[in-house]
């Protein structure tokens, strides 16, 4: 039911962990639904130079977290904000329909971390 890419990211998740010197951090989801994602980002000169995640959730939740971190690393803040859950799912060669909500969570986690960064670093 899962694509090879999902299984690869589940078995070998990229960017697992936390950043002690995170510029922004966001946690979304809740344990009641069985999914929690925490995303830490490091931003330098408007570029996301590092990102780490921790996820409590199913295979799809872990794989989308992992893929999403790869997709925003090296990107500008505005590019990262434009990342959609659909793009994450597509990069994983698709997700089973019942698991699409996991990809929404990944998008939300990135947004939460970026919003936290923007709040801490107001422009101008």
């Amino acid at each position, binding site marked *: 039911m899962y694509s090879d890419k999902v299984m690869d990211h*589940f*078995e070998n*998740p990229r960017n*697992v962990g936390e950043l002690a010197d995170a510029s922004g951090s966001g*946690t979304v989801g*809740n*344990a*009641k*639904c*069985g*999914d*929690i*994602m*925490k995303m830490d980002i490091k931003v330098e000169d408007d570029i996301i130079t590092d990102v780490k995640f*921790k*996820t*409590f*959730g*199913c*295979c*799809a*939740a*872990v794989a989308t977290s992992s893929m999403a971190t790869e997709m925003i690393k090296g990107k500008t803040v505005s590019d990262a904000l434009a990342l959609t859950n659909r793009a994450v799912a597509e990069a994983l060669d698709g997700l089973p329909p*019942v*698991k699409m909500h996991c990809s929404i969570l990944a998008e939300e986690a990135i947004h939460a971390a970026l919003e936290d960064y923007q709040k801490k670093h107001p422009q101008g």
Partner: protein
Amino acid sequence: MSDKRIIYLDNAATTAVRKEVLDAMLPWFIEHYGNPSSIHSVGRDAKRAVENARKQVAMAIGAQPQEIYFTGGGSESDNWAIRSAAEMLQSKGKHIITSSVEHHAVLHTCEYLEKKQGCRVTYLPVDEDGRVNPDDVKAAIAEDTVLITIMAANNEIGTLQPIAEIGRIAKEAGVLFHTDAVQAIGAIPVDVNEWNVGLLSLSAHKFHGPKGVGALYIRKGVRMNNLIYGGAQEKNLRAGTENLASIVGLGKAIELATAELPAHAARMTMLRDKLIRGILETIPDVRLNGHATQRLPGNVNVSVRYIEGESLLMRLDLAGVEASSGSACTSGSLDPSHVLLAIGLPHEIAHGSLRLSLGNGNTDADVDYVLKVLPGIVETLRAMSPLSASNACPA
């Protein structure tokens, strides 16, 4: 398929057909393929095979052969038993008593009767071990109660219900009693008279028989409505040419399971307790779900805190261990198992449940292997989880 070692620990979901069972079934496909309703010798051969299987099933549960009706499996038996009781007894009343931990074949049938047939259903709570209190059954019986349906053994957490006590209460009150014994056959002694049941469901593939065949025990005198119209099979109640080879397989499987029960249950209990002990001793923040001793000999169900069940299953699968979970992600819904919630587990702990169910094919070496790989898998997943002892559950 790779040739990696596979340790199958999902015997509560289904079991492998035993060689002896398959051997008993095979002649009934090509050599003896008759329709049991035909009056010629080929048909009579088939009829004899069906009636022999009926005897084997009856013997295994202390019933009379004429009280055994073959069905397409456990869910069909549950549906038939409950819907028939509700329909046949509606002049007497419309109240049904069941428990909150039943299989969905029972719960969804009760919900249907509530919504579409105007029945009133009492869903009895269970204690933290998953046991129904017989006093609650007694207290719930009303003038219009027509059926009590309580499972013999729970499919998820393995807890055994005090069926004989509930049966006595039902008998004294004159209320029809049905039990879903799908997990019980071949695991614990089953006797329809000791249990005082009027209806009992069973399914062959849970005790190394074939899939798609089961039976409903219907005590003499209990009136039933037709499940399928169109033929004289199963005393006119369930029409359709009999699933001949599978019925033969059911008979053989239940005969073997019953004959071997004491030794089998003792071996399963030993493996089960070694597995439970090993898990609780080597992995921190794990709890056993279900009753410690009043449980199915082959059932292990634990909740591993801070990790989610499907991830755990997939990692175990990669290591060659086939298991099951009550996590929402494995059910296709957003809620974890109703059984785990009924025993009072918070959602996040229910999501991290793991069921390992042992069967005939499992050995001591299998248990050792699971105990070797499981702690590392849990550690890996916990290292990836934002939850921990110091950060148990953010809102």
